[in-house]
């Protein structure tokens, strides 16, 4: 019972963080294409490869691929290890996602969306936003 209420509390915290992310950035983290891409990743290397793809433009601009990627690799490695830890409980990792509108109806459903994936996606989106605007900085 205690575990269940703790899991609900954790889920509420994550739901609130995802809503806050959406209101601040106007981006729905769980349904973003990069989040979907990251959800198919099943190793530290595959997650790092997705982030590296996004970091390339930024690294080219700043001339420090090693520094950015080393920091990201540490983040991915630590979060991936934690998300694999069964002690944390599977229930903690379930976060409700909203489906897109279909035939004028909004269908709500629950699907696993690990917080680690949310953080990886948030990093990937940050890098994408950063690299998208780089050409305006150089001119």
């Amino acid at each position, binding site marked *: 019972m205690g575990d269940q209420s703790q899991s609900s509390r954790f889920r509420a915290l994550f739901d609130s963080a995802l809503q806050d992310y959406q209101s601040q950035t106007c981006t729905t983290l769980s349904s973003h294409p990069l989040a979907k891409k990251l959800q198919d990743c099943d190793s530290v290397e595959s997650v790092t490869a997705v982030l590296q793809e996004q970091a390339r433009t930024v690294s080219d601009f700043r001339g420090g691929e090693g520094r950015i990627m080393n920091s990201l690799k540490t983040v991915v490695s630590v979060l991936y290890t934690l998300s694999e*830890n069964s002690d944390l409980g599977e229930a903690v990792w379930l976060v409700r996602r909203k489906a897109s509108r279909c035939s004028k109806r909004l269908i709500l459903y629950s699907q696993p969306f690990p917080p680690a994936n949310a*953080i990886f996606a948030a990093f990937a989106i940050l890098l994408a936003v950063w690299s998208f605007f780089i050409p305006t900085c150089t001119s």
Partner: protein
Amino acid sequence: MAHFMNRLDFYTRVPLTGAMTEMIVKIMVEMISTLALVTKQIKQKRTSEYVAMCIPLV
């Protein structure tokens, strides 16, 4: 963010207690909030730079 990661890195090497699990969840929630703030600020800064570039002062 580096301090958060150092703390999380430590937690990957020891058996987790309830209090540690709670701390991990709070750190991850803070990371999402921090990334939201940075992403928002980059978008705003870059957008205002872009607008300033496209609409020169008369």
